């Protein structure tokens, strides 16, 4: 078993296709110098022509990617076009040809390498990985400078592509039909190759050390893109186990009428996800085109019974949901019960004020064995897809740290038993005003937030919406609540974290401009609202919605907000 970085979820099984890239290498290793101004002139012309051809290739690739994969992914090749035609880059290459009398290919390689190395020293993965993009662009240009054309890949359907490093251009040409999985020695989760693999739905494990030394062309391999592991030449037992896992994953793949993502008119992508309670609701969510699950309420598994479900039972329940979503995100909320939703076997005792009592994460931290069992089941289920863990009712930083500590223990105990546990994104619900106001502190500790507007509004407005004497004062559109959401979103984005919303406000199609303008990255709702919400989002221009929200935040009350939204 070889470990790497889980870059694109899913399982791939197939023969290894060893890909060794040597683009235009012979050409660039030609050490001959140019003789006289005529040769320099001819070489400059050759360079211009090659740039022109490479640019047309890239434009075509960008178009195809836009149609087949998506706008954001096509943007990668727009960036490549600008790199190829970059005035600084071209001027430096020409300079080398004119002054140092080097051949175009060699000049391109030297300049590209110098630029790539200057990126490689930046103190940020995202920038460092751009070195790979520059090398990709240079390789394309070298191919166009070479006599003869680029070597076509002869991929057998269902191959596992194994390479030292893959370029985004190559990856964009893969499809789920021809490539069963990807494994490389170099590359991280934010590399363009990883982004492309995820968009194409091809399982990928990147950054696998020693891969090229051990992989043999044509030999069978298993790629587990969720756990980030590669098995070369697996035994029959392991192979059977993975075939079963893969079948479970594939059973959940369905077509949908509303499969497309939601995108504002000016191109901002909003994930429209489903709130679900059990595996039975998965079908409905998928049929309505859910881009994932923004809230999987696990408490229903714990209700109407004499004792809590064990680890295996929970694993089955989570696995089924996670696998059905085929690598789409599934945010699972850990047990969220308390005095207001009592469970007989938990018996928290009588509380005067259960809403301000031992509920949500507070209760889990008080019942650590129960909590740890659930976390173990969740960590195990994570290898079947794209599972994320979310803690409810968080008030303080200390609670997050405690929860993460218990999760780390759960992980260690699983690993001690020989299980491989993939990295799992961990987030919290923002439903307590204290958490919203401290969002900038909490954001550093988690991977995402999800705003639970029902409780956030109740706690902010000090209104029990089940109490008819005051329920009239309840409205999640109150500017006080909106300001807390605004603070939360801004804080999260400052730290590069994403923010969803999973309260009832997310089901209000009329509030779509508000939700979009607040800058939410994901909105999760009952499945039936997904198609109309997508339709509403598609009609909105993000920059106009932002402007609208700026005004809404200044309004005196929820009535005024509703009036402004109805216009």
């Amino acid at each position, binding site marked *: 078993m070889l470990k790497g970085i889980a870059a694109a979820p899913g399982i791939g099984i197939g023969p290894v296709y060893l890909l060794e890239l040597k683009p235009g290498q012979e050409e660039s290793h030609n050490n001959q110098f140019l003789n006289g101004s005529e040769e320099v002139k001819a070489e400059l012309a050759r360079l211009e022509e090659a740039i022109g051809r490479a640019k047309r290739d890239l434009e075509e690739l960008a178009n195809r990617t836009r149609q087949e994969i998506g706008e954001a992914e096509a943007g990668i090749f727009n960036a490549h076009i600008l790199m190829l035609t970059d005035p600084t880059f071209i001027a430096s290459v020409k300079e080398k040809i004119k002054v140092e009398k080097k051949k175009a290919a060699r000049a391109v390689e030297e300049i590209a390498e110098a630029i790539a190395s*200057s990126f490689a020293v930046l103190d940020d993965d995202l920038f460092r990985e751009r070195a790979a993009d520059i090398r990709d662009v240079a390789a394309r240009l070298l191919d166009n400078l070479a006599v003869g054309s680029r070597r076509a890949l002869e991929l057998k359907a269902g191959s596992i592509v194994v390479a030292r490093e893959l370029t985004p251009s190559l990856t964009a040409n893969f499809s789920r039909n021809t490539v069963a999985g990807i494994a490389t020695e170099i590359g991280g989760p934010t590399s363009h190759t990883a982004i492309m693999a995820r968009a194409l739905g091809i399982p990928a494990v990147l950054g696998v050390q020693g891969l090229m030394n051990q992989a043999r062309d044509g030999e069978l391999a298993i790629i587990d893109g969720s756990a980030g592991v590669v098995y070369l030449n697996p035994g029959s037992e392991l192979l059977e186990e993975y075939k079963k896992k893969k079948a479970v994953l594939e059973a959940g793949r369905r077509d949908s009428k509303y499969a497309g993502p939601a995108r504002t008119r000016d191109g901002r992508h909003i994930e429209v996800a489903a709130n679900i309670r059990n595996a039975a609701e998965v079908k409905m969510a998928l049929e309505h085109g859910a881009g994932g699950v923004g809230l999987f309420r696990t408490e229903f598994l714990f209700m109407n019974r004499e004792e809590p479900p064990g680890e295996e039972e929970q694993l089955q329940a989570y696995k089924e949901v996670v696998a059905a979503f085929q690598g789409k995100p599934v945010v699972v909320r850990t047990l969220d019960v308390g005095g207001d939703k009592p469970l007989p076997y938990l018996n928290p005792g009588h509380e005067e004020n259960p809403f301000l009592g031992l509920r949500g994460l507070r209760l889990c931290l008080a019942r650590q064995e129960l909590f740890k069992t659930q976390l173990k089941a969740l960590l195990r289920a994570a290898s079947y897809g794209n599972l994320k863990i979310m803690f409810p009712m968080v008030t303080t930083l200390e609670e997050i740290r405690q929860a993460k500590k218990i999760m780390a223990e759960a992980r260690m105990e699983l690993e001690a038993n020989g299980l491989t546990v993939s990295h799992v994104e961990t987030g919290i619900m923002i439903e307590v005003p204290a958490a919203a106001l401290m969002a900038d502190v909490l954001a550093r500790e988690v991977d995402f937030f999800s705003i639970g507007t029902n409780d956030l509004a109740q706690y902010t407005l000090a209104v029990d919406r089940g109490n008819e004497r005051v329920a009239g004062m309840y409205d999640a559109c109150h500017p006080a609540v909106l300001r807390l959401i605004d603070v939360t979103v801004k804080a999260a984005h400052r730290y590069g974290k994403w923010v969803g919303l999973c309260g009832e406000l997310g089901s209000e199609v009329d509030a779509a401009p508000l939700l979009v303008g607040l800058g939410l990255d994901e909105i999760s709702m009952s499945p039936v609202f997904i198609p109309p919400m997508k339709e509403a989002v598609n009609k909105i221009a993000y920059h106009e919605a932002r402007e609208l929200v700026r005004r809404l935040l200044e309004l005196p009350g929820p009535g005024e907000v509703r009036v402004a939204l109805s216009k």
Partner: protein
Amino acid sequence: MPEARVILKNPSGLHARPAAVFVQAANGFTADIILQRDGKEANGKSILAVMGLGAKCGTELVIRAEGEDADQALVTLVELVQAGLGEAS
């Protein structure tokens, strides 16, 4: 030379795709565009130079423009950065 200051809001900084959006817009003006971060300068029409700034989320960028349509270029580019350069902000 007119200049404007704007805070970069892109969560992952000025990496390839947002940089491409900026450079593409800058290319639409005849004015020379200079982008500055912490005293580092970049040609606003060169994606490699713009990415080379390594600007992260929350960085203050100074945009300078010189040429016929400099004022208009500044307004457009500032708005574009504020709107998140085609990305989630």
